């Protein structure tokens, strides 16, 4: 066993872990940041966009140094139904001025950069090491074991992602259930920067974020996404695991079908696939949240289930970064009081409630349940696309006023008017 004892061992050099390591090392603490991948980011993937606010308050103007791809100027939501498609398209050029609202990025490069910032502050980064177990002393977590090596610390931060083995070994997290997670698959598709800007109507290096709902998931709960990077597109699908459990569609086929969808095909045409990746997304919010601290241990980022999916907004990285920040602050407070028990670390939970993760997850507590409604993924995309098609069609038939078109379309769809009114009301309140 090593003689040295670290002030903190952080498992996982993703955004949560590297942020915590950066802040603790900056305070002069001896910090070990352990990553199972050969380099930070080499095991990580996400859809494609980070909201800036959380990182900007830790590393001001981070976009001047960080390997980000494009600031997002356009938000597009597209309803898919065979040859029909309806999009809501919002462009706001204030989003692409400092302090840039959000950026598309690629994790291999970005996470590597963030970990290097922690290293610059003095954190020790150890890559290619898989943490196998925790060390306990009288029920309190006191270190980690990786293969034959054992390392001790005052506190462990479990930032090891959605499949958090560390939080499970600590007895803080239970194995998630299939309805609590979604499977995301993604293809990175290479195109020239000019082609990307032209196809998405973007000025210069501005970016677009496009979400899709409808037949790309064959009626299953989930959706498609497309983010523009500098010279690649990140295209993918996210489908609830409990749906994949029952279906006879292969998700690996669905993403190929998605590229062939008439609304997507012209956007990716001529591109070259340069990577295919998959990852789980914790989607159940507070319902799946582990205990956030135990004696000698904190849980942050995806490991804590800190993701919010509202259908039109998907947040994970800003939560991860802010939870790493809160964890670092809690560790500093615990050091001051020389108390690393659950009680001594409980500032972590307080901070998360104030600012802003638990506050936001609480506000949208019923969102995941509402989005479990299958009408969102089949009947409503059909209703919207067919109605819009009628509104724009001129074919010599007798005129019908807008209200008549709406009423006849609702009648034709399998959704009753009361159900539609109820869902609209709920959606507006819960999302």
């Amino acid at each position, binding site marked *: 066993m090593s003689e040295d004892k670290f002030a903190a061992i952080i498992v996982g050099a993703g955004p949560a872990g590297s942020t915590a390591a950066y802040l603790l090392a900056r305070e002069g603490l001896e910090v070990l940041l352990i990553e199972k991948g050969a380099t930070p980011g080499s095991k990580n993937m996400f859809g494609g966009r980070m909201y800036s606010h959380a990182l900007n308050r830790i590393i001001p103007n981070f976009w001047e140094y960080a390997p980000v791809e494009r600031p997002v100027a356009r938000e597009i939501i597209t309803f898919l139904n065979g040859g029909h498609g309806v999009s809501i398209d919002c462009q706001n050029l204030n989003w692409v001025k400092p302090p840039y609202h959000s950026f598309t990025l690629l994790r291999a490069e970005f996470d590597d950069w963030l970990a290097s910032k922690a290293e610059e502050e003095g954190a020790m980064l150890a890559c290619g090491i*898989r943490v196998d177990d925790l060390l306990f002393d009288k029920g309190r977590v006191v270190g980690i074991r990786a293969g034959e090596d054992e390392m001790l610390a005052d506190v462990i931060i479990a930032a090891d992602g959605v499949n958090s083995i560390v939080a499970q070994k600590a007895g803080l997290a239970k194995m998630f259930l299939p309805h609590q997670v979604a499977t995301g698959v993604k293809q990175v598709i290479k195109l020239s920067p000019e082609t990307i800007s032209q196809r998405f109507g973007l000025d210069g290096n501005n970016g677009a974020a496009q979400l899709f709902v409808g037949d790309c998931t064959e009626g299953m709960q989930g959706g498609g996404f497309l983010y523009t990077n500098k010279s690649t597109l990140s295209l993918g699908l996210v489908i609830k695991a409990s749906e994949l459990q029952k279906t006879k569609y292969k998700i690996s086929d669905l993403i190929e079908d998605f590229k062939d969808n008439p609304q997507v095909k012209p956007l990716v045409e001529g591109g070259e696939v340069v990577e295919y990746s*998959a990852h789980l997304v914790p989607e159940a919010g507070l319902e799946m949240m582990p205990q956030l601290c135990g004696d000698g241990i904190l849980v942050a980022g995806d490991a804590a289930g800190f993701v919010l999916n509202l259908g039109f907004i998907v947040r994970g990285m800003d939560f991860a970064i802010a939870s790493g920040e809160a964890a670092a602050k809690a560790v500093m407070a615990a050091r001051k009081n020389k108390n690393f028990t659950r009680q001594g670390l409980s500032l972590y939970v307080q901070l998360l409630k104030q600012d802003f993760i638990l506050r936001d997850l609480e506000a949208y507590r019923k969102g995941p349940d509402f989005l479990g409604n299958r009408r969102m993924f089949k009947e409503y995309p059909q209703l919207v696309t067919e109605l819009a098609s009628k509104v724009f069609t001129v074919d010599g038939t007798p005129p019908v006023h807008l209200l008549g078109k709406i009423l006849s379309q609702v009648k034709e769809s399998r959704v009753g008017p009361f159900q539609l009114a109820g869902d609209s009301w709920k959606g507006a309140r819960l999302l």
Partner: protein
Amino acid sequence: MKRLTIEQLLGINKFAVDDDQAHIIVKKEICALCLNKPCTFACPANLYKLKDGQISFDYAGCLECGTCRAICPQATAALSWQYPRGGFGVNFRYG
């Protein structure tokens, strides 16, 4: 775009396959009792295949997402799941 097979897609990725240790071990005798075998559909890398009615699984090509662990009706008994040893497995160059 031309349709790609899953083998072609995985062929694009960079893997450091651990020849000495499989990170996922499937207990096929338990799978034999499973009616729906959802792993044969849900795995994004399509690594769980049916051969003569039996599950066959190849851990090389695993994207390490954990979907099989989430959807297997008998996960605790049928699957021994961990990440590959440090440095091994998939190596995302984009992510």
